[in-house]
């Protein structure tokens, strides 16, 4: 139909390939969410992608007390594929967040995948609200 529609699909498929081939994500699917013109990718990373700092602290405490590492299963992530040259607004980001189902715990989050012309993709975690940074 319109050019932007096609553009979004192309960017999403490039990111989709990158997740599948370079980062070994599993169960990848492209979703069309109601109210969003852009497709969203959903998939399962090989290991947990994001651990909230409070959970990090709890995991460290657990490791210290029991001597064994806390096990964290990977979680499904929502990926928003964009091109590096695009411009977004707070309102368009908020629309994406609003279209997502509620997170099981913690704040809603998406993985922002920025695609460049040389097919480099960089990934950023975007969370709703003021979420303190991870300790690394």
């Amino acid at each position, binding site marked *: 139909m319109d050019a932007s529609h096609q553009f979004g699909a192309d960017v999403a498929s490039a990111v989709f390939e990158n997740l599948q081939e370079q*980062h070994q994500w599993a169960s990848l699917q492209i979703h069309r969410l109601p109210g969003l013109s852009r497709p969203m990718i959903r998939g399962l*990373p090989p290991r947990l*992608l*994001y651990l909230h700092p409070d959970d990090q602290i709890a995991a460290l405490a657990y490791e210290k007390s029991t001597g064994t590492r806390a096990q964290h299963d990977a979680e499904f992530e929502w990926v928003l594929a*964009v*091109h*590096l*040259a*695009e*411009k*977004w*607004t*707070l*309102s368009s*980001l*908020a629309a994406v*967040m609003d279209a997502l189902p509620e997170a099981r715990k913690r704040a809603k989050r998406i*993985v*922002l995948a*920025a695609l460049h012309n040389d097919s480099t993709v*960089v*990934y*950023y*975690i*975007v*969370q*709703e*609200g*003021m*979420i*303190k*940074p*991870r*300790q*690394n």
Partner: protein
Amino acid sequence: MEQPPQQLIRIANISGRYLVFDPDAVSALRRRANTNGTLVGTTPQQPTQNIFLGLPIELRPEEVDALVSAGVAYVVDDVAAHRSALLSLGPDERRAYIGSLRSRKQAAHKVFAEVTAQKASIAASKAEKLRDSAKSDGSLYSRNSQVTSLGVTPTSSVHYVSPDSHALPVEHHRDSEKGALCQFMLGNGYFMTPGLRFGARYSVYPGDPLRFHAHFMANEYGWEEEIPILDIVGGGRLATAVKKAFLIGGREPSATKPDAALPAVRSFSIEWAGM
């Protein structure tokens, strides 16, 4: 615990800058309103030294707006206040002011004299020890008590400019589209310092900056203002490299909140995903 009624903090507006001169007000701002401001005062004789700055502190316009609307502070047109106070200085007020200067000067002299006497007594006791060991006489040290303190010229105008003359009306808000993020963060107990060293507008601390590391580098945007993805990538990457999150946020115009004390702000925290 019942708190005594809090005094409003006087913010002086001088040639477009917002300054707080009173040390008590500065500490009250820091204690009660989680605002630390930026020290900008230097010495008149060494105006180029900018490593150790002192009072006054300068506040950002949006901080001032937030403080005023939170009912913590009020803004005074300090130039007009001084001009009118100086022009209307009658002989009686003049005498009273000179008297207040004199009493302040005497008080300062007294403090200096006490400090000097204290130093002299410490030096004398040291000298005594020395003398006990080296059998030298104390004439070298006896001069210490003769040291006269420097004459102090009080430069303060607190005693003749009444603190609330020429107070600006509360609704002197600038464009309220911007500043909502600042107000939101102040209202939620965050401290802010200038974020320039991390390429953002604010460094945001979860508590006093002397006790905490910053958690966020924050930029405010309008609700429909375009944000280049490259800025998100750059900000997110730099913030993660310094163990912070990159925060973008702004006022959401459509949202209505039941408690209208704080603006409806929507914010997003961005970190590098590490892949």
